[in-house]
């Protein structure tokens, strides 16, 4: 332990861990965005709104069960599913007709959808802050490196992150649908010609991507106050991470989220007033040297 201390101070270590828990949320949401962008070529600005809806749904489910622990676990399962349902409706009703459109139009269209969703959330849930309680199991904190408190819930996040990453990797690489979607991302017509219903595959990918956004929202809900405007802050970060990591590349999203989360938390240590600059600068630097992103993109 002392050896580690001589290299990095406990404060920095704890900062890194916190940055990592933030990374988890960013990764989960960004991976969904990357999936949609990489396979469907849709820059889904509404992804942030779906994240917000995930958080609000988690609140509602938890609220129905009186804020109990069971309520939390149900919310963790129910909210992403709810968001998936919403996205399914949106996809079948709207997006499936637009897969061949220009990117600019798609960008503006998803922006329009995000505006609509934003106000719909206001209509359905009202304007007040909502709070989702942390389940009993995760309340309190562990003392790291002697005396630095680290919330237990964050350790839960640190476990969820790799789990989701592995699950995603399995789906994308080991399942049939994953392989088909990877093929379709590269050459849609070919997949079509082989007789596979590409539209259906695209729909599935879209729903999975949005489900991830909802999951991110549900996971983050106990740590913040659930408010309108969550979508705007997150969407820009998610986009930057996806671009930085490489479009359509799940590991790229992970790498991007890592860089973003860590530069954010460490930047704060170095220059508190302008800490926010560090992640943006990192993105700029990466894009200058590797414009298509750090890892291979599917475009």
């Amino acid at each position, binding site marked *: 332990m002392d050896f580690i201390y001589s290299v990095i101070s406990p404060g920095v270590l704890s900062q890194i861990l916190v940055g990592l828990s933030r990374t988890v949320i960013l990764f989960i949401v960004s991976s969904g965005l990357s999936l949609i962008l990489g396979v469907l070529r849709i*820059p889904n600005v509404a992804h942030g709104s779906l994240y917000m809806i995930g958080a609000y749904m988690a609140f509602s489910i938890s609220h129905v069960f009186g804020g109990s622990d069971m309520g939390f676990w149900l919310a963790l399962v129910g909210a992403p599913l709810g968001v998936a349902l919403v996205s399914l409706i949106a996809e079948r009703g709207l997006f499936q007709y637009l897969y061949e459109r220009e990117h600019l139009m798609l960008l503006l269209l998803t922006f329009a959808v995000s505006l609509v969703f934003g106000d719909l959330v206001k209509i359905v849930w009202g304007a007040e802050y909502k709070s989702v309680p942390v389940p009993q199991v995760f309340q309190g904190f562990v003392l790291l490196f002697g005396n630095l408190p680290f919330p237990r819930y964050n350790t839960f996040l640190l476990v969820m992150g790799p789990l989701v990453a592995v699950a995603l990797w399995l789906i994308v690489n080991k399942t049939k649908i994953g392989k088909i979607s990877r093929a379709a991302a590269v050459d849609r017509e070919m997949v079509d010609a082989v007789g596979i219903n590409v539209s259906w595959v695209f729909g599935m990918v879209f729903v999975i991507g949005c489900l991830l956004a909802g999951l991110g929202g549900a996971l983050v809900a106990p740590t913040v106050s659930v408010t309108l405007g969550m979508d705007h802050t997150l969407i*820009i970060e998610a986009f930057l991470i996806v671009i930085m990591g490489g479009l359509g590349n799940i590991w790229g999203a992970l790498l991007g989220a890592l860089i973003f989360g860590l530069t954010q938390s460490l930047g704060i240590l170095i220059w508190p007033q*302008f800490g926010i600059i560090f992640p943006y600068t990192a993105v700029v630097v990466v894009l200058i040297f590797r414009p298509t992103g750090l890892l291979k993109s599917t475009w």
Partner: protein
Amino acid sequence: MVGNNMSKTGHKKYISLYIGIIILLLFPLVLPRFYIYLLSIMLLYGLAATSLNIVLGYGGIFQFHHAVFYGIGAYGTALVLTKTGFSPWLGFIIGPLVSAALSLIMGIICIRLSKLYFGMLQISLGSLIWAIVYRWYSFTGGDDGIHGIPIPELLQSPNGAYYFTLIITIISLWLMYRIIKSPFGSILQGIRDNPVRSEMIGVNVKKHQLLALVIAGFFAGVAGMLFVVVDNTVFPDMMFWTLSLEILIMCLLGGLFSFFGPLLGASVIVALRTFVSTFTVYWALVLGIIMMLVIFFLPNGILGYVDEIIRRKSRTEIVKG
């Protein structure tokens, strides 16, 4: 015969334009103060949207964060007027020049990329600049913004500000129109349609695009400067990405490939925003639905659609004739 026809339609075109300008000049005599103020806002946003159209519609460049240049133009002017003893008229020029300079720098960094990547890098850089302005409280007033910016007495009344805005906007639009119609403009559109071909015939693609970016940035800065004259305030929100998307929407609504499209789009959006807010708080919802309708049914914007109708009509005339 063809020559005769050309000059006739040429004259016709200009007559309606002159009528339009005269009407605009006469408005202050008949309209109440509020509408004059609103017109000023429409004009300057129209200017900002048109400047975006130069690079987006005519240049095919994915300028996703245009608001940065608008905002920096405004802040440049505001800071000169509040922090230095320079003449305000000098401030009015410095603001847009700062935007142009920023446009050049950002352009050099981003131009190596294309399409979506260009847009994303620009968003990152733009967000970086926003963050700096937002946090540098001691210099820029931070999230509070700067208020009560002193402007020359001549421009303080709504009418004064309106005429100034109108004149500057007309001159700027005329300049931009000339640029688009010039050989430079044609090359730019050629680059948009087929960059590889243009390169092959010896066009320095990057240089042309860079110049277009600087021009667009400059006029966006002019629009920002006009905002300072009309409203005497600046806020960091003026360079936030949501405003960039709004300006994009203005271009889209009016028509990306027409010159006056963005101006029309801007007027509609400003009018709707003001009008709709008297009825409901859910302006975002309304805007979102309008956007979706436009994308589905009027992908070339209002003027694009009008153009189509006119073209269809003239085609049937030719067939009939």
